[in-house]
């Protein structure tokens, strides 16, 4: 469909006899913040891994910018304009923070401009004072931010974030939301897998709900919050709050 940056068609993933994701048709529009939610075991992370290419689908197809990327390896998807932050903090722990960013940047930034771009990103993720420290010495929240910085360094068309606020304090979570909104205001499309409803309400423009591996509901955040079926399977008391 026109305006869709990413589209999945009947995406299915089976592990032996268990179907984790079943025939999901998902569309991410250009320029939106799209949140993928669902109760534990709904298949959110599996769907995310299918989209980024770390899992191979059992059936279905994935289109990015109208190109079929179903068989593409993760690095090829990144080269086409996706940028990925997986669930667990995944930084190069032994390497300095600045070098972590440089490795992400050096793909497309000329050598002469590297230092300035590193400085800009360090400031954006508030790690300027920690630039020379090994990334493994950062706090959990700081590592999450560093990883977001590395994802942004790729100047992606689609930013994919799997539980970006896991392990963060409420204050850090809120600031992460502000950062995502700021990036979106600059034109970046963002797909976020989350279960923190406060965070979802802060950032989401459209929401897709998964349940038992199937697409259960989708719409604006207001529509999802108002949907009693969603409240029943997932939101519980949070809906009323």
């Amino acid at each position, binding site marked *: 469909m026109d305006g869709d940056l990413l589209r999945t068609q009947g995406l299915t993933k089976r592990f032996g006899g268990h179907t984790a994701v079943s025939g999901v048709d998902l569309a991410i529009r250009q320029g939106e913040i799209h949140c993928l939610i669902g109760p534990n075991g709904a298949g959110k992370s599996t769907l995310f891994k299918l989209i980024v290419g770390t899992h191979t689908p059992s059936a279905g197809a994935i289109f990015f910018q109208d190109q079929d990327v179903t068989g593409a390896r993760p690095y090829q998807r*990144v080269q086409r304009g996706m940028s990925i932050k*997986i669930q667990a903090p995944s930084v190069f722990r032994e390497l300095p923070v600045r070098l972590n960013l440089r490795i992400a940047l050096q793909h497309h930034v000329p050598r002469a401009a590297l230092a300035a771009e590193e400085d800009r990103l360090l400031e954006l993720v508030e790690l300027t004072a920690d630039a020379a420290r090994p990334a493994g010495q950062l706090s959990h929240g700081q590592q999450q931010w560093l990883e977001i910085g*590395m994802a942004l360094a790729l100047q992606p068309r689609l930013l994919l974030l799997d539980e970006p606020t896991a392990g963060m304090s409420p204050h850090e979570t809120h600031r992460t939301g502000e950062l995502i909104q700021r990036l979106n205001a600059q034109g970046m499309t963002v797909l976020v897998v989350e279960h923190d409803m406060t965070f979802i309400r802060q950032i989401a423009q459209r929401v897709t709900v998964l349940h038992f591996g199937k697409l259960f509901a989708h719409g604006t955040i207001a529509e999802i919050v108002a949907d009693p079926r969603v409240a029943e399977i997932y939101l519980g008391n949070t809906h009323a709050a």
Partner: protein
Amino acid sequence: MFLSVNGPQTAGNGRAFWLAFAAVLAAALAYPVFADPYDVGNFAYLLLWVFMAMGLCLIWGYGGMLSFGQTFFFGISGYAYGVLAINFGGADGTTFLALVLAVGLSALAALVLGYFMIWGRVTGVFFGIVTLSATLVLAFFLGQTAGPEWRIGDARLNGFNGMGGMEPLNLPWLDGDSLYFEGTALYYLVVALIVLVYLGLRMLVNSRFGNVLVASREDPQRAELLGYDVRKYQLAAFVLGSSLAGLSGVLYTSWGQFITPSSVGLPAAAMPIVWVAFSGRSDITAALAGSFIVLLLFQTITVYSQQAALILMGAMLLATVMLAPQGFVLGAVRGLARAARRGRLAGQEA
């Protein structure tokens, strides 16, 4: 493309380091003037092994692939040099052609073996097992080549007795003579090659390639999610590091004009691991300096007792694993650097 010998992937980058480097190089160049020619030849023998160590440092220390295959490539190139030098006749610079072809053969073998391992997702301890298996298969094969049917052209492999009779490296020289790279000439050739390889590797590991290689060691999935096909970087490092082991093999065969299957066997395969682990696998300078020190120590003790030298190697490996996993030489250098920094800070405060 501008490449720097200094950068985040090497321990020594400052003025003091390069002054020390220049001093060591000057001493190495002046050594034959003062030393006995026999000792110079002996030093050349010790130095020719460090290519293998630097190659392993690139593969294991920077690339995170524990390879027991350095002696496999050492053997391939060592034997290939022998076969080629014998068949080429060994005159008119053909030994250098044999050197290039023999090292190229190692590179090709590393490309094939590395492709199947890296694309087949053989990682961690299994990488070591497969490369060790390749080494042992080659040693076993060479050991059973005693019969007269095991010959390639004029070169007989000779099983456990080893292959000999090849010309050492030589070049056409003045008045129709040849310059043979033996003794002092070999020493200078090896020193020049070490400087070239060392500086080249420093440039490589401090380049964008080196950054990605180190990233793939730290977290291959993360590196791939930054858009890199890490397999290509790992394969390139494996081929280059293995080719350096091949270069050691050629120089060894040229030095002694002799090579046997024992230089490919299990004890030989473990040696580079001990040198590089003890020295500090994550830094090329530590691997170079440390390996030379360990080799010197090993040879000094071997004069009195080979068994004692082997026991010492084992003890050094154990001590490294238990006391200084980052390596003793690298650990000592970093400790000295920290002490110097503290001293400077204390001086500034005073």
